[in-house]
C-alpha cells in the first residue's frame, strides 16, 4: 500500500491525508500511526503462521503443547490486543475532543446549514446572510456549523478540514470547523441520499480575518 501512496502522493481536493485544519490533521496523524502499527502486526502474524506451518515441531509432549498454548494465547490473545487498544484510546480520545464544540468556545461564529435533496442551504443567523452551497469562514479560528436536514439524512463533510457530521431531519448537530490555511476547500455529502447524491457538493472558503470582515460586509449588502 506504500507504493501507490508514494505514486499518488496524498493530495487531492478531498484528501483526508492532506489536512488543512486541526481536526483533519489529528485524524491524519492517527491514520499514519495506526497504519504503521497495523502493518507491523499483519506482517508479524502472517510470518509467524507461515513459519509455524513449515517448522518441524519435533516431539510435542502434552506439557510442551500446554506451554505453547499459554504463551501464544496469553501473549497474542490478551496482551497484544489489550495493550494496543489502551495505547490507541490514550491517543485517540483526546484527538477527538476538538471535533465537537468545546466549553471554551466563546464568541464563535455560528453558521446554519440545512441540507436538501441535493443542495446545501447556508445561513449566518446572527449576521442575516443566506447562501447556497458555499460557506465562508475566517482562517485560524473555529466556527460552529449547525447542521440539519429538511428531507432525508445527509452528511456534511469537508475532508481537508474535519470529520463528517450527519444532517438529520428533526435534529441539529453542531460541528466545530477550523481551517489553518486560506483557500477553497471542497465539501461533499457523505450519506447516501438518493439520485443526486454523487453531485451534492459545496465549498468552504477560508479568508484571512480582514478579508472575511470585508466579505461579510459585501454579502450583507448584496443580501439586502
Amino acid at each position, binding site marked *: *500500500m506504500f507504493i501507490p501512496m508514494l505514486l499518488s502522493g496524498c493530495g487531492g481536493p478531498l484528501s483526508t491525508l492532506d489536512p488543512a485544519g486541526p481536526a483533519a490533521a489529528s485524524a491524519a496523524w492517527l491514520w499514519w500511526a495506526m497504519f504503521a502499527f497495523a502493518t507491523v502486526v*499483519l506482517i508479524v502474524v502472517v510470518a509467524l503462521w507461515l513459519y509455524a506451518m513449515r517448522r518441524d515441531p519435533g516431539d510435542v509432549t502434552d506439557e510442551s503443547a500446554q506451554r505453547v498454548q499459554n504463551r501464544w494465547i496469553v501473549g497474542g490473545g490478551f496482551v497484544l490486543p489489550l495493550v494496543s487498544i489502551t495505547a490507541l484510546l490514550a491517543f485517540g480520545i483526546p484527538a477527538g475532543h476538538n471535533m465537537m464544540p468545546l466549553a471554551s468556545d466563546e464568541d464563535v461564529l455560528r453558521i446554519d446549514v440545512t441540507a436538501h435533496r441535493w443542495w446545501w442551504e447556508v445561513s449566518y443567523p446572527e449576521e442575516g446572510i443566506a447562501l447556497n452551497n458555499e460557506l465562508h469562514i475566517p482562517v485560524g479560528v473555529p466556527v460552529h456549523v449547525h447542521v440539519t436536514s429538511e428531507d432525508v439524512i445527509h452528511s456534511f463533510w469537508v475532508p481537508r478540514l474535519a470529520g463528517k457530521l450527519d444532517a*438529520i431531519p428533526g435534529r441539529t448537530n453542531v460541528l466545530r470547523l477550523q481551517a489553518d490555511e486560506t483557500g477553497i476547500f471542497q465539501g461533499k455529502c457523505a450519506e447516501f441520499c438518493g439520485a443526486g447524491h454523487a453531485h451534492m457538493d459545496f465549498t468552504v472558503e477560508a479568508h484571512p480575518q480582514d478579508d472575511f470582515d470585508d466579505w461579510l460586509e459585501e454579502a450583507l449588502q448584496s443580501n439586502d
Partner: protein
Amino acid sequence: MTEAGTEERQALHQRLERVWANPPGWRSLAAVNHTTIGLRFMATGVVFFLIAGVMAMLVRTQLALPAQDIISPDVYNQLFTMHGTVMMFLFAIPVLEGMALYMIPKLIGARDLVFPRISSLGYYCYLFGGLIILSSMVLGMAPDSGWFMYTPLSSAEYAPGPGSDFWLLGITFVEISAMAAGIELTVSILRSRANGMSLRRMPIFCWYILAMALMIVFGFPPLILASVLLELERAVGMPFFEVAGGGDPILWQHLFWLFGHPEVYIIFLPAAGIVSTLIPVFAQRPIVGYRWLVLAIILTGFISFGLWVHHMFTIGIPKLAQAFFSVASMLVAVPTAIQVFAWLATLWTGRVVYSLPMLWIIGFLVVFVCGGLTGVMLALVPFNWQVHDTHFVVAHLHYVLVGGMLFPLIAGFYYWLPHLSGRMPTRVLGNWGFWLTFIGFNVTFLLMHLTGLLGMPRRVYTYEPGLGWDWLNLLSSVGGFIMAAGIAMIILDIALHFRFGRPAPRNPWGADTLEWATGTPPVSYNFASLPDLRTRHPLWESPELPDTIASGEHGLTDVSHGRREIYGSDAITGKVRHVIHLPGNSWWPLFAAMGLALVCVSLLVRVYPLALVGVVSALVFLLRWSWENGAHPSAALLVHGESHDPPLHSRTTDGPGLWGMVVTLMANGTFYLSLIFGWLYLWTASPGWSVPEGEQIALWLVIASGLALTAAWMDFEGAVRALRRGVDQGLQRRFWRAGLLGGGHVALLLWALRDASLAPTALAHDAVLLVMLVYVLGHGGLAALLTVLQAVRVGKGYVGRHVPYEPVVVRPFWVYTVGIFWLSVAVFLLLPMAWGTPA
C-alpha cells in the same frame, strides 16, 4: 469381511433406506432430510452469490473511469442496494445455515435434525422470499436506498415505488428461514448428540454453530420488528420513523444495527468454525486451547450485541456513549485474537500437510487479519468521522466478509467435497482459482482503502476526474474482474471434479470427526447404528468406527416399526434419555410456505383481502401439520401396554418440542423487548414526540381481559401439573375451559380496542400502542386456539396420561402470553401515567 457380513450390511442398509429415503422424482419436494435440505440451501445460496457478483461487476464497470454514464444513477442505486442485500441475506447467511444443517447431525452422530419439517419450511421461505426480492430487479423496481434502508430515504415520501416494500416484505419472509434454522440447530445440538458426547467432547464446530444459532435467535428479531414497523408506516401511514408524527428516523438505525452488528459475527463464527475444524486435521494434532476457543466464541457472542452504535458515530451522539461503544468495538479484538493465536499454536505444535483447503485458510488469515485491523481503526471515533461512509469502509467490510466468510467457506467446500461427491478435488485448477481470487481481491480492495482516504464517499454512481481517484478506481475494477475469473475457475473446478476427480478413500484427510464415518457420498440415514462416544476425536482413537457403525454393531438399528428414530440426549452430559421419533417426508411445509408467499405478494400489490386468505391458509396448513404428532397414527401410535427403553420422547415431558418452544419464545421475547426499546426510545429521544390527552383505552376493560387470561392460564397450568403426576381425569374439560376463557380474554380486549380513541396514523405514540395491542391479542388468540386443539386431541387419544408431551410444550406459551400481557399493561399503560405527560 465375510460375504455374509456384507450381505447383512446390505440388508440393514435397505431396511433403513426404506424408512429414511426421500421420495423419488418431483415428489422429492416433500423431502425433509437434512442432507437434502442443506444441499438445497447451499446450491441456492451459490446461485444468489453469482447473481450478486454480476451486480458487483456492473458497479465496478461504471466506476472504472470518471464521469461515465454507462449506468444511470437510478439503476446504479438499485444495483448496489441489491448487491449488498443479496450477498448478506440471500447468500452469506443461508449458505452457512445450509452448511450447518448438512453438517451438524453428522458431527454429533445423529441421523437428522430434531425438527426436519421445519428445515423444509425454512428452505421454501428462503427460496420464495429470495425469488420475490430478485423479481424486483427483473421488473426494474428494485429497492434503491442502500442495504441498510435508512429512513426517511426508504419511506413512502422519498421512495414512493414498491422497491422498499420488496425489501421489507421479502427480507422478513427470508428471515423466517434464518429463525427456523437458528431454533432447530440450537435444539439439535443441545438435545440429540450421540450417547456420551458431553459438551466438552463436542467437536469445536458445534460450539461455533451453537453460538451462531443463538445469535440468530437474539439478533434477527430487532430487524424483523423494524421491517414490520417501516412497512406499516409505508402501507398505512403509521409514523414510527417520521418526525412530523412524533417518530424518529434514528430509531430505524438503532433497530437495524442492533441486528446488523451481531449479523457480522453470525456470518463470521461458522466460518471460523470451519477454520478451527480444518487446522487440526491438516496439522495432524488436536486443536490447542479448546477451552479458550469456547470462551472466545461465547465472548464474541456477548460483545457483538454491545457495539451496534459504532455504525452510527456520525449521527451526533454524546461523548460518553462514543467512548463506551468505541471501547466495546475494540474489545471484540480480544476473542478474535485468542482464536488466531490458538490456530497459530496448533500449527506450531503440529506437522502440517499442505493441501488446497489449507491454501484458502492461509488466504483467510491474511485477508481477515487485515480487515480486523482496519476494524479496530474504525472503532476510533475521530478517525471514524473521517472515513465513515467512504470507500475505506467499503474496503474494510469486504476484507472482513470476504476474508472472514468467503475464504473459509471455500476452504470448507473443498474439504467436504469428497464427503458429498465421493471424489477428491483436483490441484491445478483449484490453485489457479485461489491465486486469481486472492490477487484480484487484494488489487480491488487494498487500493480502495486509499480511495476512501482520498475522500471518495461510498454509493456515488460517478465522480469527476482530477480528484486523485481515477487510476485507483481503474485498478480496483481490473482487480474485480480478475477475482471474477478466479471464482469462475473454482466453479469450473468443482463442476469438473464430479466427473473427473479420483474416487476418495474413506476419511481422505485423516480427520477425527464423525461425519467421515457416514457414507461418502452420504446415505439418507447417516449412520446405520448410533455409537457411544468417549472422546472428542472418535476417528483418531477408533479408526474402525466407520466399519462397526455400518455393520450395525451400535444402537438403534431396529426400524421394523417404520419410524425415523434418533437418540434424545442430556444437554450437558450427552447421556441418552429417550428416543426421538421424527416426522417423515411431508407436503405441509411447502404448502405453508406457499401460504406465506401469498401473504407476501398480496401485501406487495396491496390486495389486503388476499393477504388475509394467505394468513388463514398458512395457519391452517401449519396446524394441520402439527396434528401429526404425539400418538397420532402417522407419528407413534399408542399401543396398549407398550414399553420402550429408553422411552419414546412423546411419552415423556422433556422432549425436543419443549426446548424448541422455549428457544422460539426467546426469539419472540427479543422481538417484544425491541418493541419496548422503541417505545422507551421514542419517549425519551424523539424530537417531535407528543402524547394525547386523557385515557385513550378503557383500563378496566383491559384489566378484566387480563384476569380472564390469567384464569385461563391457571386452569391450563393445573391440568399440566396433574398430567405430570400421571393424572388425566378431567384433562379435556379443563382444556376446553381454558380455551374458552382465553376466547373471553380476546373478546374483552377486542371490545377495549374497538372503543379506544387511537389515532395511529397521526401519532407515533398511538401507532406503537396499536402494534402492542395487536401483538398481545394475537398471542391470547393463539394460546386459546392451541388449547382447544389440545382438548380435541385428548378426545382422540393423541394426548393423555401416557402421552403427556404436547401440553408440556404448549405450557411455556401460556406463561409467555400472560407475562407479556401484564408487562405490556405496566410498560405501555401504567408507566406513562406515572411518568406524566411531557410538557
